[in-house]
């Protein structure tokens, strides 16, 4: 059992939590993930570490409320406990020896991009950041990114804040100005990562992507998170989650990510119905 020490609503569908887990906090590095279960019948949810406070022994997670389990997690408040919390899992992001990088974050993927940008900034690397969101209300972590970036571009699909357009447009501009980057880190929806890779390709800069496929155990046992990378079978949990963007078969990953959509939709409806009944009960009491 792990205690929730802090909760912050970042936007209508994204929540940040800090969980007390000293052993994990002590070890976790940028790019690694944890697996948690909210309650005894809960599923194992993999979430990337968004930061940690080694002294306080807390790990920060940022999650999008997409399914029944994240809906349930979002109902928890500081002081309450979650059933299981295990990690850090996966290999840390390789940042060694980098002097200038471009970090590209999309949507809730920014939660994963941030610790990588922070880590690189700490190492004295020049970090240029491009983040994209659908619209103004969905923007998260803007201040945090600005603190560690030498240049920061915010893009929205509808132009409701920042620049209008897709992250790939800005990535192309930046690289046209200078190709002098050690690496591009792209973290976000699979489609976004796929197109960042194809945008960067003509410039010949390496691209690292962070994959978060469906997982159960996260220790190399279920084979659920398998990907094709450079024609070889890889498990995101033990071989990743970071991979060479040029080698990842994104179309296959996109298809496999849809495997449980129907089941998830059903579970979401059930959870929503349950929540609504709870709210009705509350109303009757008052």
């Amino acid at each position, binding site marked *: 059992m792990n205690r929730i020490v802090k909760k912050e609503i970042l936007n209508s569908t994204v929540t940040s939590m800090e969980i007390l887990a000293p052993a994990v906090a002590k070890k976790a590095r940028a790019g690694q993930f944890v697996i948690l279960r909210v309650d005894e*019948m809960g*599923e194992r949810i993999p979430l990337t570490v968004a930061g940690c406070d080694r002294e306080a022994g807390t790990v920060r997670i940022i999650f999008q409320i997409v399914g029944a389990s994240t809906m349930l997690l979002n109902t928890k408040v500081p002081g309450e406990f979650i059933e299981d919390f*295990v*990690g850090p899992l996966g290999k840390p992001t390789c940042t060694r020896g980098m002097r200038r990088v471009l970090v590209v974050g999309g949507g809730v993927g920014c939660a994963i991009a941030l610790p990588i940008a922070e880590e690189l900034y700490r190492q004295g690397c020049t970090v240029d950041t491009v983040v994209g969101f659908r619209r103004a209300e969905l923007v998260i972590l803007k201040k945090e990114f600005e603190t560690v970036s030498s240049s920061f571009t915010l893009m929205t699909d509808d132009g409701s804040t920042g620049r209008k357009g897709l992250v790939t447009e800005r990535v192309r501009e930046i690289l046209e100005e200078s190709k002098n980057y050690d690496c591009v880190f792209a973290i976000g929806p699979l489609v976004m990562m796929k197109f960042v890779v194809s945008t960067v390709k003509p410039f010949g800069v390496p691209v690292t992507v962070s994959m978060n496929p469906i997982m159960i*155990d996260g220790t190399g046992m279920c084979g659920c998170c398998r990907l094709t990378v450079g024609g070889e079978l890889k498990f995101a949990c*033990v071989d990743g989650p970071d991979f060479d963007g040029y080698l990842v078969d994104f*179309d296959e990953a996109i298809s496999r990510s849809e495997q449980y959509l129907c*089941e998830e939709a059903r579970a979401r409806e059930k959870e929503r119905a349950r929540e609504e009944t709870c709210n009705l009960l509350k109303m009757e009491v008052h």
Partner: protein
Amino acid sequence: MPNMQAKKTPMPTRDPLERAHDFEEVTVGYTDKMALSEAERCLNCKNRPCVSGCPVGISIPEFIAKVREGDVQAAYRIIARSSSLPAVCGRVCPQETQCEKNCVRGVRGEPVAIGRLERYVADRHSELSGEQGEQEKKPEVNGRRVAVVGSGPAGLACAGELAKRGYDVTVYEALHVPGGVLSYGIPEFRLPKRIVQDEVEQLKSLGVNIQTNTVIGRTFTVDELFEMGFEAVFIGSGAGLPRFMGIPGEQFKGVFSANEFLTRVNLMKAYLESSATPIAKGKKVAVVGGGNVAMDAARTALRLGAQKVYIIYRRGMEELPARKEEVEHAMEEGVEFRLLQNPVEILCHCGQPDQRGQSERTERLKERDSRNGWVRAIRCVRMELGEPDEQGRRKPAAIPGSEFDTEVDTVIMAIGTSPNPLIAQTTTGLETNRRGCIVVREHTAQTVRNSVYAGGDAVTGAATVILAMGAGKKAAEEIDRELKKK
């Protein structure tokens, strides 16, 4: 006068039509009367051939003699001298290739049902202990700390043996439930999880500390365990990494490793409405492989409501590596055996085995057909058996041009597993062989690194519960010997 009946006393088993729809245990277990009658079939041979067939050398005729006398507790004590998990092994050991294979009664008729008797003794012991509130005496502690990595059969056996010798043992388990393959792999209908829990509780009562949700190699490294004050480390991290065939279409939606499928059901309880973990409930399921895991996956698919379940295996009936009883149970329940066949490709809706790089047209098709990218059929080639190889197994060879398709919506790959790579990747000074198995000095559990021991599937590659248990126990003896020297 021994009971000269040629056949084993039958095991009471639930009706196949009924049991194929639930997750309750398939076999019911002997009554006192049945056990007595079966025990009387044992001739108590002087040269004890059965014992030499047992990987841990249980004194089989002696425990059976106690059953004959009606002294179950004494029988249990005899088994417990050699085995740490009698209730488990009585259920899952491949007795027909071990103890029972050597039984003299097997020459004319069936061997003594040693496995069934072992299970009877273990189950009765647990009932009696519960009634009498019998508690194992807590051993005297010596204050020396040993860490055990993994709470599967090897880890549990090692921890139990060390605890009995007075060590302060901590078992680290990566998952949220202890038991390893006993919890995530073997289904409830074959090994009820309460039995695994009982074994774990028994260890706890001996003073063993079990830490779940801790991944050695990640949360703590082996080096850190030594820094934390452990004097020896036993690695029993198992062989959990699933293998795939490498055939086209294996990445389509609806293709699972047996590990994924079984973990969702056994560990995550996805068969219960109250579980949040989703599971694919296929209507026509192909399970590739002929071992116990394949049988477990096939029978689980039936229980989840499949109308057709095929076992696809490249050799024949005789060569099936699964326990005979599991094969029989699977057949009774309606699993169809497609023998001498080998998959060459998995096909999906939309016809193409691979739609990579296709254009907008496919995108539009995708919208129309939500089944796009889902398994549609499995293409197999017929096989014939050639000459036996050096291990005496007849090598299968494909018959050219004999390919044919079987319509299925789910494919489960149960073709074996490799050792978990995490510990080897993150521990300095360990050696692994080309199959990823941790190398130990011959006839010992000692790795090339001082004070680090290993055993079970992590060393041998996927094998049996009893071999892993035996290895864990042996490692405990070696650790005890080494630490006493210090």
